């Protein structure tokens, strides 16, 4: 029995289509994971280039390089690309690569759907990016596409934006369904839910969030589409609709969405910290419950994005307290990571450096989030650079740093080679310093009253903006080192054993490095 399976595996390996068709037709979870990760790296640089344009324009006060309308398109598309094109596909790619390896499954449960959910993504972003070059330009209403900006006042290419978001949504929903079915049906015998690695747990919860809220986003953009082109009045007071309702529906999606972008990061950090502290993760059960309660709470806090829309006092208090409540399970996580490191034999390999930076900097983002949760204070902070600083701390030094940490952590497993450690450390230190030069001063200009989404600003913000822009250019350039590290590692380097890191635990370290094309055709035995 085992032999025959082995033979089938080997023969199918020999009959692999080569060249481009290998990637187009592939149903292999490792290939698709690689595609997702490669695509998100490409999108990181596309979105990053837009950030560079934004920072170049803001380098000096006054309008220097681009028209305000194009500036608005840049902030909008930068946000959309980074959220839906860089962070989310990167996590789906990591899920594709690692979840089957971590739970001892031969592949994802629905491999054909897996292929489809990846290959529709490039079309979504091609549509979105193409609209930038059309007459009228791309979307310019902010990634949150508030009505009536996206309905009454938007340009004729809004339909392209809507369709591209539809496709991204379908892709995410299919990816999430695949993750859930894989985790529920394909775990190796003996791997109970409470024995699953944290990364698998956080992804399971993320997948449920995805299928709960991505359809709501699809519904929202559909309403924008019909309001704009077919004369409905969901968000138009003239026909009995309500523009404030847009914000309620959008943020009902939008708040769980931000946890979709951070829960897998928690899973990654919970994998890396124990490995290099050479201790078991402190409080595994509390981690699982904390993740679940964050996911639950994310559904009842959405209106904290809308304190200034004129809510009654009772609602403001409710959303303020429920938001602050989230810091409890998040605090549990941070303390558990710190407790895991406590008295561990810590070594500072590159993934660990990024993980520690994540804990510190994500916590800063969490604290500024708490400040924003205070309703009376939020009236001052709303729509300023303080908000920009907050969500870039949680998304760049949070989500993105965790993705980079994960790539450095598992790259030797994927390629069979160790990356250039010296170069990777330079990448880390350059990123760490430049990212703080980039985002930390934003807190201060925000508190001093500089509004977000503007191409020009008052003169007193000039010096800080120049510093911010310099940090931005440095951070953008530093990421080229990351690409070089990854490319070099694929090409060659020191051979690594199956268990790349001596403190690592988990099934993925029991298969050879590089991971064979087919793994766990027979389920492993779980002790």
């Amino acid at each position: 029995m085992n032999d025959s399976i082995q033979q089938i595996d080997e023969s199918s390996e020999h009959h692999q289509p080569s060249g481009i068709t290998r990637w187009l037709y592939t149903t292999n979870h490792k290939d698709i994971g690689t595609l997702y990760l490669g695509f998100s790296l490409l999108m990181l640089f596309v979105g990053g280039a837009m950030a560079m344009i934004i920072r170049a324009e803001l380098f000096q006060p006054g309008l220097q390089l681009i028209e305000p309308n194009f500036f608005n398109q840049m902030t909008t598309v930068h946000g959309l690309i980074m959220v839906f094109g860089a962070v989310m596909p990167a996590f789906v790619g990591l899920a594709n690569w690692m979840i089957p390896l971590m739970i001892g499954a031969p592949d994802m449960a629905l491999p054909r759907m897996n292929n489809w959910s990846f290959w529709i993504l490039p079309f979504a972003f091609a549509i979105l990016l193409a609209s930038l070059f059309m007459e009228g330009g791309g979307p310019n209403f902010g990634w949150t596409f508030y009505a009536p900006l996206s309905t009454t006042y938007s340009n004729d290419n809004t339909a392209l934006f809507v369709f591209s978001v539809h496709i991204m949504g379908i892709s995410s929903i299919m990816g999430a369904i695949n993750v859930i079915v894989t985790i529920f049906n394909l775990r190796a015998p003996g791997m109970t839910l409470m024995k699953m690695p944290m990364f698998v747990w956080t992804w399971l919860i993320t997948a449920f969030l995805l299928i709960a809220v991505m359809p709501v986003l699809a519904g929202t953009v559909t309403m924008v589409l019909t309001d704009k082109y077919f004369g409905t009045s969901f968000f138009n007071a003239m026909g009995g609709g309500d523009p404030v309702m847009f914000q309620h529906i959008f943020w009902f999606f939008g708040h769980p969405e931000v946890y979709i972008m951070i829960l897998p990061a928690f899973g990654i950090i919970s994998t890396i910290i124990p490995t290099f502290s050479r201790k078991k993760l402190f409080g595994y059960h509390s981690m699982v419950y904390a993740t679940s309660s964050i996911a639950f709470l994310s559904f009842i806090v959405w209106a904290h994005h809308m304190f200034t829309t004129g809510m009654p006092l009772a609602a403001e208090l409710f959303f303020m307290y429920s938001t602050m409540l989230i810091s409890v399970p998040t605090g549990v996580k941070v303390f558990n990571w710190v407790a895991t490191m406590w008295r561990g034999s810590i070594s500072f390999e590159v993934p660990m450096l990024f993980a520690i930076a994540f804990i510190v900097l994500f916590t800063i983002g969490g604290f500024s989030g708490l400040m924003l949760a205070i309703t009376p204070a939020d009236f001052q902070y709303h729509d300023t650079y303080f908000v920009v600083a907050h969500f870039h701390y949680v998304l760049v030094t949070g989500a993105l740093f965790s993705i980079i940490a994960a790539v450095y952590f598992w790259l030797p497993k994927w390629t069979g080679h160790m990356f250039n450690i010296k170069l990777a450390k330079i990448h880390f230190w350059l990123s760490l310093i430049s990212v703080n030069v980039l985002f930390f001063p934003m807190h201060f200009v925000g508190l001093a009253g500089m509004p977000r989404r503007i191409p020009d600003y008052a003169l007193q913000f000039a010096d800080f903006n120049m510093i911010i822009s310099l940090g931005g250019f440095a951070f953008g350039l530093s990421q080229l080192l990351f690409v070089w590290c990854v490319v070099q590692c694929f090409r060659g380097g020191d051979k690594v054993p199956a268990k790349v890191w001596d403190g690592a635990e988990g099934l993925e370290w029991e298969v050879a490095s590089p991971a064979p094309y087919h793994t766990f055709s027979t389920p492993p035995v779980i002790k």
Partner: protein
Amino acid sequence: MSQHRPLLKRLLIISSLMFGFAFALVPLYDVFCQVTGLNGKPSMQQAKTSESINIMQQVDVDFITHAQAGAPFKVIAKNQRMTVNTGEMNKVTFKASNLSDKDLVMQAVPSVSPGLSAQYLHKVECFCFQQQPIKAGESVDMTLLFYVDEELPTEIEEMTLSYALFDISDKL
């Protein structure tokens, strides 16, 4: 594959339901706002007339209007501010002018501030209940008949009734 089908089916059903839920939020939102009166949307239903007057409680009511998206209308209340007793029936006349050289149809959408007072403002008759055709360059008088509920919390001493004016000629 067959072992995955039941779970796959369930997850697809959840996704479709959530897509429907986004649209269900629209009526839910309206119902929620009507029940709680949170967003200052007064009822668009004709109210019964009031039967008693509370001479002890007074409230100032302001009337403002603003034309939306360049709609060529001007609407002014003859009395822009009234002090009324709760329960007392009041009549306000608005003068509406069509500033353009075309025959247009106007729709007024009311809103009350502070939002929580919206549920205490009862309109027995309002020009906002119907679409108002106004000939080019002409002016018409429009009537609002209303009273403020005696249940109005005493801390509310002032309220503003605001009308957003829309040109809906193209939509007809």
